[in-house]
Each structure stands twice: as structure tokens, then as C-alpha cells.
């Protein structure tokens, strides 16, 4: 399988990437590691006419402490997230979730920014940044803007990024409490999660329980009003609209959400 024909352009800087994307118009796409986009292009589910390769912009690959936040460059690979000693210390939830994405080869190429911009509700990192209450920094023709993770994921493969806008950084406030957990359930090693859950502090976010990653608000409210973790987890599927597919129907996914949320809350409590 090969993708439909396109024009490949390589950007040497963020400014050049924005200019090339603007010239390419609606049919231009940014290419980072390519591990979400190229498979779709091979299946002809995505047919961009212009690819702007931003993969060499090493200035967008970093993890650093910045005041009260941890700043993560959008081109940081899953592998580098998983290996980061700063994340291991300050944000182990992100490091651990990144270490479970795909397989080693995928983790060498795939990037956090690529995953978030792709906005696949079955992907792990969108739910993780939602639980972490991250701010996403985008640069576009109109300048720089900050988008809260809660506003970023708008639907199936749909983010708040405008055409020609490039996600450059993910800013994550250092969590106030130590407890965290990431749980996902897959049939086979490299599969996407049938359901996943990220817990940090009192926030709970779900993978693959709707058209976009969602906060389990009913669980959070129960926890805030003093419910025991096991009791709060019973509300995990409330207000969700999980997909119904070969991997599981709505009932099965709802059950998984409750079970995984209970495990995650238990683990987070044990770590706190």
C-alpha cells in the first residue's frame, strides 16, 4: 500500500512550516512522526495534497521545568517522554502512559503533538493531558494562542486547531497531589485501548468512551463529596457515549470503564 501522490515539503523552522502550510491551503497537512497520518494515507482515508514535514524541528523536542509548569515540546517522541527523568519525577503519569503506546518502533517515531492534533478518542495521550489539565500552545498565521485541553478535543479526529495552525507545546501544571494511575485494557499487546482511564489528583479522564476523550465528571463529583473510590467508580460510564464496535459494545465498555476506574482510583490512592 502506498499513499496517494502528494507534494513533500520540509520545514527548517516553525516560521517556515507555517508559511509552507499557508501556501498549501486546505489540502496541506503537517507531518511529524507520521504514525497516525501515514497509515491513514496508505488506506486513502486521508488524501492531503501537500505534506509539510516538521520532523526535523528539533527545537520542538524537549521536556523542561518552567515555573510551576512542565513544558513539553510537541515533537517529543513517546520514547523520549517515557525516558525523561524529569517526567519520571514530576509527571510519572505522562511518562508511564507514553511507555505503553503502541510498541517500541512506534514510540521511536510517534510524537505527543502528533497524537494530540490527530485527536483520536482511542489514543492514550489525549485523555492523559485532559486529566492533567494541560494547556496546548498553538502557533498560526494569527499568532500564538493557548487552548485548554478541555476545549481542544472537539469530536472524532477533530481538534480546536485551525487550518495552518501548528501545535508547538504542551504546558502541564505540576500536580498538587502525588496519586496517579493509568489503566488501559487491550485484547492484544499493540492494540488501541478498548477503554482506558487516567487519574491524577481528583481528576479522571477516559479513553475511547465517546467521540473525544472525556472527563468522568460524575466520578469526580462523588470523590469531591467524600465517596470511597470504589463507590465513586460506579459512576464512571455516566454521561459517556462509548462506541459500539467489534471490540466491545456499549454495555461492555461501560463495565470496563467502571472496573478500570476502580483499579485506577485504588492505585492512585496507594501512591498518594
Amino acid at each position, binding site marked *: 500500500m*502506498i499513499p496517494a501522490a502528494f507534494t*513533500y515539503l520540509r520545514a527548517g523552522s516553525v516560521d517556515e512550516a507555517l508559511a509552507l502550510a499557508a501556501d498549501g491551503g486546505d489540502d496541506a497537512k503537517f507531518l511529524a512522526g*507520521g504514525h497516525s497520518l501515514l497509515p491513514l494515507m496508505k488506506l486513502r482515508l486521508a488524501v492531503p495534497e501537500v505534506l509539510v514535514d516538521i520532523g526535523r524541528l528539533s527545537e520542538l523536542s524537549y521536556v523542561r521545568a518552567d515555573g510551576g509548569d512542565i513544558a513539553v515540546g510537541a515533537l517529543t517522541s513517546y520514547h523520549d517522554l517515557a525516558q525523561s527523568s524529569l517526567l519520571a519525577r514530576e509527571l510519572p503519569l505522562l511518562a508511564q502512559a507514553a511507555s505503553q503506546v503502541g510498541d517500541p*518502533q*512506534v514510540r*521511536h517515531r510517534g510524537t505527543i503533538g502528533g497524537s494530540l492534533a490527530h485527536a483520536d478518542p482511542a489514543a492514550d495521550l489525549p485523555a492523559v493531558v485532559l486529566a492533567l489539565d494541560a494547556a496546548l500552545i498553538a502557533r498560526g498565521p494569527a499568532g500564538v494562542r493557548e487552548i485548554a485541553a478541555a476545549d481542544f478535543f472537539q469530536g472524532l479526529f477533530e481538534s480546536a486547531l485551525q487550518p495552518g495552525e501548528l501545535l508547538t507545546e504542551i504546558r502541564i501544571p505540576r500536580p498538587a497531589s502525588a496519586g496517579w494511575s493509568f489503566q488501559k485494557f487491550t485484547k492484544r499487546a499493540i492494540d488501541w485501548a478498548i477503554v482506558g482511564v487516567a487519574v491524577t489528583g481528583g481528576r479522571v479522564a477516559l479513553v475511547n468512551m465517546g467521540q473525544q476523550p472525556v472527563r468522568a465528571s460524575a466520578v469526580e463529583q462523588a470523590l469531591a463529596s467524600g465517596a470511597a473510590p470504589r463507590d465513586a467508580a460506579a459512576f464512571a460510564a455516566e454521561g459517556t457515549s462509548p462506541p459500539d464496535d467489534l471490540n466491545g459494545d456499549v454495555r461492555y465498555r461501560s463495565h470496563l470503564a467502571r472496573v478500570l476506574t476502580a483499579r485506577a482510583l485504588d492505585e492512585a490512592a496507594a501512591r498518594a
Partner: protein
Amino acid sequence: MKVSVTVNGNPVTAEVPDRTLLVHFVREEAGLTATNVGCDTSSCGACTVLLDGQSVKSCTVLAAQADGRAVTTVEGLARKGEGEAGGELHPVQQAFRAEHGLQCGFCTPGMVMAAVSLLAENPSPTEEDVRLGLEGNLCRCTGYHNIVRAILAASKEQVS
């Protein structure tokens, strides 16, 4: 576009369509056909090569993304020696032979490259580390036990 890749230490330059995948560049332009196209959907790992030392699935990388970089395929692992048969196999290749880490052999080039990358990152893996490290490589003969044994043996060989 013109793409130049250093494949197993040798520069390979070719004018290829922009949509050319790295695996096809390696097989058709570099003429090295050990790297297999298996599932073609970045699941099976038969096309695994090293890109600047890290394992990647070459069916999901554009040749253009590897332009100016170094690729290592299984043909590039053996130490060069005198004449055709004079080379010495890489410790991972030797271990696959000694432990019979293959059945039909289709997945083997990708398995070996995944193992080389794994051992570069973790020279003394546990059996669990090895099994997790091979998540991205499928053996349809299901000969995993000997493959894992081979990689553990190679790690001991390299460490000692």
C-alpha cells in the same frame, strides 16, 4: 525528489516519487531485500530497520523522512571480512542461529533489528523486558520462545 540515505554505511541516492516509503527505497533503490514487507500497516514489524540507531517500521516512514540519515538493515550487521563468506555474524545473529530463533524466517530480519535496538537501549534485559520489547514484531510460526532465548543469550554474550 532526490533522496540520499546512508544504508549500511554506503551512500544511496535516488530520484524517487515523494510518496516512496523507506522500505521500498531500501529494497528497490538500495537493492537490499532482506527487509520484508509483511502487514504493511505498522503492526507486524517485518520491515523493522534502524534509523539513526533506533528501530522503526520502514513501511510507515517516508524515504524523504530518512533523507540525509543513516539506515541499518540486517544485511549491515555482520562484520565485513575477506570474501563473501569471511564476515563474522553480529552477536544477535549468532544467537538466533545457536538458539534456533526462527522457523520460516520471514519475521527474522525485523526480529533481529528490533532485538539490536532493544539491547542498545537495555543491554541486560529480563525475559519480561525482552517480551515487552518485541511487542511490535509478530512471528506467525509463533516461535517466540526461541527468539526470546536468543536475545537473552545475545545480551549475556554482549555484556560478558
